[in-house]
């Protein structure tokens, strides 16, 4: 029944003989499939080959050190407040007399933990940090864990190695020395 006058009229013809026996169409389909059988495959063999990440990929977190090897993080808590998933917790502490070469300012993070199961890798902590301390690396991802207690990353797994500085995305094109004047 026609409700509007915009309805289209279609002709539906019955099948021709060649269509009704299906065989010519099957043969054509078999040809297409065979062509795909011999074509180049789109699979890459992970983990031997990997597809490259973009330079602004948000991967595993890292707490950076400045060019003298001192931790930049001052446990101000802005990253914890910014985190939408409440994954970051920290305990602040006062820098003692002999620890000047370890921490930049008088306040430092005694304990800094990120719960990797809560983290959504959004990068808001990186945007919020005033000391350019926390970054999300663009070449590493959080590795697979097998136990629940491996999931909370402490400072031992987050602070970068002084000899093997981490790639921090677009920031990696700026050297450590250039970075220091930008700190507030």
């Amino acid at each position: 029944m026609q409700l509007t006058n915009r309805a289209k009229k279609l002709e539906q013809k019955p099948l021709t003989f060649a269509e009704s026996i299906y065989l010519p169409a099957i043969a054509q389909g078999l040809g297409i499939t065979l062509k795909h059988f011999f074509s180049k495959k789109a699979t890459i063999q992970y983990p031997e080959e990997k597809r490259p990440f973009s330079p602004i990929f948000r991967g595993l977190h890292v707490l950076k050190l400045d060019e003298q090897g001192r931790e930049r993080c001052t446990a101000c808590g802005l990253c914890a407040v910014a985190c939408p998933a409440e994954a970051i917790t920290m305990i602040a502490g006062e820098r003692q007399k002999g620890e000047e070469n370890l921490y930049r300012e008088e306040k430092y993070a005694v304990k800094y933990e990120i719960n990797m199961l809560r983290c959504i890798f959004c990068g808001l902590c990186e945007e919020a940090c005033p000391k350019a301390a926390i970054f999300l690396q663009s070449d590493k991802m959080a590795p697979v864990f097998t136990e629940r207690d491996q999931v909370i990353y402490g400072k031992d797994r987050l602070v970068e190695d002084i000899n093997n500085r981490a790639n921090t995305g677009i920031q990696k094109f700026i050297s450590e020395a250039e970075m220091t004047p930008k700190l507030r």
Partner: protein
Amino acid sequence: MELALIIKIIVIVVIFSITLLIATYSTYAERKVAAWIQDRSGPNRAGPFGLLQPIADAGKMFFKEEFIPAHSNKWLFIAGPALAMLTALMSSAVIPFGKSIMVGENYYPLVGIDVNIGVLYIFGLVSLGVYGIMVGGWASNNKFSLLGALRAASQNISYELAMGLSMVAVLMMYGTLSLTEITLKQTGFNWTIIYQPLGFIIFLVCAFAECNRTPFDLPECETELVGGYHTEYSSMKLGFYLFSEYINMFVSSALMATLYFGGYNYPGWHYVYSIVTEHFGHATGHNVYVLIGTSVFFAKILFGIFFFMWVRWTLPRFRYDQLMDLGWKGLIPTAIFNIVLTGSAILAQDYFQFKGIYFAIYYGGVFLLIIGGILWSFLNYKKKIVLVKA
């Protein structure tokens, strides 16, 4: 123990193990062929090129929990997959894998059992195969399994009719039910396919339906009936059902190769025989020649198995009513027409004593069928107008 008995036992054990081996690696080949057609590479982690994948699959099946549903008939539940496997394996016994090998002074044929009713035996086993599905569906105590089993059983019996009718045409040509005799008569390039292409197409379609392979895999697709008749099965019993499908594929390919493609015969066998007997001497040369024939047979079977997989990833599934229409209204009349055509062609050939008459009548009949079909579709031509809301 006599030498004949020992050789027979060796032949049977070898045929049995080759059947199982080919079925096992069919599962691997299925995944690889499916992957290559879909522009990806298949399993390649379990051993070099993924060749140990079937063992991993078997191990997985073995370690799963075996359970039997409550309120089900325990013996029938176990008997279902056992029946399916039994009939699948038994049908590989009558296929001639090669001509007779010569040991000492006697010839020993490379068949499991050398009966002269090979075709009838296979046909009987195919009919028994319906039991495996039906029993499995009933014993699951699950209405959906029962419906799936009913559909599978009805599909099976519809298509075995057309299969039998196309085999009747082959029988008329050779006058014997014995598969070894049929293969012996197809020497060189004198294969049945050039005499009966229509019968081959019918047999091919029915082989797909008997093995529950796409496009006729309604009984076992997950989207239609959850799992169909093997919903409630797990672990080794499910493994048996799936494995019996691959064995059925192997046996169907072997039967097609035997009936229509000349089995172990190939063109140029005279030349190969003379070279091999010259090189190796009479006795060993004969055996080498027979083994070459067997490897040609296996090449045909492996191509048949590849064809099953190739079609699976090309065609969509038939709906149940389309399936039944095709079986009863499409294939059986065509098979009967094929029998009539073959009969008249053979009679004319015998009367006129001229081989060309057979081809003239048979191919003329097929041509007339095609013309008749085209005319029929012209007569049925009517335009249907369908309104579509814009």
